[in-house]
């Protein structure tokens, strides 16, 4: 692993989430490989890496999605293991996830979708959450969260539901995928709001534009932590050594199912 510059002052920054030696195999392939990372409370982090690095898998493990609960190692949230908790139990502790491709719901209104997540279920709060992602409540509240909404609109509505939830830790999987520049700006605005709320953010990305909105970055490749540190350092490393990836040998060995641990 390369360096650890960029870590916050350990006296002031508290660890909110810690992955300890997490190893996950899916279909006989090792997807996460002895991965250990700490995330700090109230900070914005980015997990960056090429396709197949294990970034989304890491988010899925933290959220406890089905198929991602049987792994070696541990996940500690506020010092306690959450390994045996269900998705909703983790959510009630304050952890949530925004998917790369948000789900569509036939017939479920935007209002009901946001309200279901909201900590404060008043109409005014639900409207406020929509405004915070740049959508007019009058135009959207009665619409269904279905295919009549664009991908960008659904991403913003999902983010509105997360803002209304007021979580302690948010996993944002590829927040820029499938959306236009204007929608991306609104998502970055929402990121600032989450930061103001004191929410810890972990962004999953392979985009340098997204990376630059983080405070700390972790570079993953082949399910391993390759480097961590300041955004500038990781951005430089990513540009120089990940495009193309200089861990091809590791990838080939992974593809052959060999133990790379």
């Amino acid at each position, binding site marked *: 692993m390369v360096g650890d510059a960029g870590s916050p002052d350990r006296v002031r920054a508290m660890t909110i989430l810690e992955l300890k030696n997490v190893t996950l195999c899916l279909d006989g392939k090792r997807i996460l490989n002895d991965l250990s990372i700490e995330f700090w409370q109230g900070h914005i982090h980015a997990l960056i890496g090429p396709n197949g690095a294990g970034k989304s898998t890491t988010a899925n493990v933290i*959220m406890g*999605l*089905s198929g991602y609960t049987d792994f070696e190692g541990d996940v500690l949230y506020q010092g306690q293991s959450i390994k045996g908790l*269900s*998705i*909703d139990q*983790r*959510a*009630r502790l304050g*952890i*949530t*996830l925004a*998917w790369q491709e*948000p*789900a*569509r*719901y*036939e*017939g*479920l*209104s935007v*209002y*009901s979708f946001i*309200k*279901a*997540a909201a900590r404060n279920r008043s*109409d005014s709060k*639900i409207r406020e959450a929509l405004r915070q992602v740049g959508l007019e409540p009058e135009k959207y*509240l*009665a619409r*269904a969260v279905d295919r009549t909404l664009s991908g960008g609109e659904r991403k913003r509505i*999902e983010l509105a*539901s*997360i803002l209304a*939830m007021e979580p302690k830790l948010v996993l944002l999987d590829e927040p820029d995928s499938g959306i236009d520049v204007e929608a991306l700006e609104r998502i970055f605005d929402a990121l600032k709001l989450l930061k103001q709320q004191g929410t810890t953010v972990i962004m999953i990305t392979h985009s340098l534009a997204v990376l630059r909105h983080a405070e700390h970055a972790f570079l993953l490749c082949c399910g391993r932590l390759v480097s961590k540190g300041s955004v500038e350092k990781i951005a430089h490393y990513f540009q120089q050594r990940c495009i193309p990836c200089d861990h091809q040998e590791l990838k080939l060995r992974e593809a052959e199912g060999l133990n790379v641990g």
Partner: protein
Amino acid sequence: MSDNALLQAMYQSIGINPHDLWAQLDVARIEIHANRVLGVHLVQGLEVDARQLDDGIEARILVAKGVRIAKPIQVCFGMIPENGVQRVILDIVVENEARAGVVAHCTFPNARNIRHEMDARLTIGRHAEYAYIERHVHGAEGGVVVIPRSKVHVLEGGRYHTDFELIRGRVGQIEIDVELTGEAHSASEVAARVSGSGNDRINIKEVAHLAGPYARGVLQTSVALRDHAQAVVYNTLRASAPHARGHVDCKEIVQGNAVAKAVPVVEVTHPKAHVTHEAAIGSVDSRQLETLMSRGLTEDEAVDLIIQGLLLKGRSDRRPLGGAYQSEVLPAGTA
């Protein structure tokens, strides 16, 4: 119970304050408990001729030619006792160029052994428009047998929309049987949304015949099942005239030990007619479920919300008769 007490109980079970309704003099209404008409309020151009039967009511309802009734007619059918039979025979005529809508609330909140049969014959005149929305409220015991049968004839240029909903309380047993014929340039939509649980039995049979040129028709069914409930949906759409267009859509969500069967039949006997169909039976989508659970909902809460959305889809995105009855479309947030 007094008539007034029965009315109060019926309206209370469907969440309506009758005094609010009765204060609206421009809203026509008909209230029937078992075999007695408890209340009728008519508006100009609407005629109701009701006759008491031993076990129900026979009524002829007519909307006179050219009359356009602005607000939906409110009909409340039901029975407050636990046991009994209610048979309703309806002959509904919407004369040429007339326009009306009906919201029928059918309530059996205490049912243990109730049988509700309806035989309706509807004639929608030339260029007339008629929307019929039937909402059922049953008790938790499932002791209801509901048998709504209707034969509908939509004349040239007529528009017909019907929406049957049973998503509160247990179904018991339901046997929906709709037979519709659409003449030239007519437009018809038949929708049913039913949620079954326990050992409920749901049989839905909808047959539409697009008999005239440019006739259009849609049959749409959404069913959610859990526990040991069973449903069979037969949707048949025939098109036998040039430029007739139709679509059959059946969606069923199954959980637990429930069993669903869908049989969409499309039959085209004219080379310039076109009919499509889609049927989907499956469980709740895992991505939808996990998204809601990641917001803190339990699995059961998430499933309920997803199913409510599916079942209410027909309501929230429809505007029967071009928006004339928007008050009947759910307000934001209730889906």
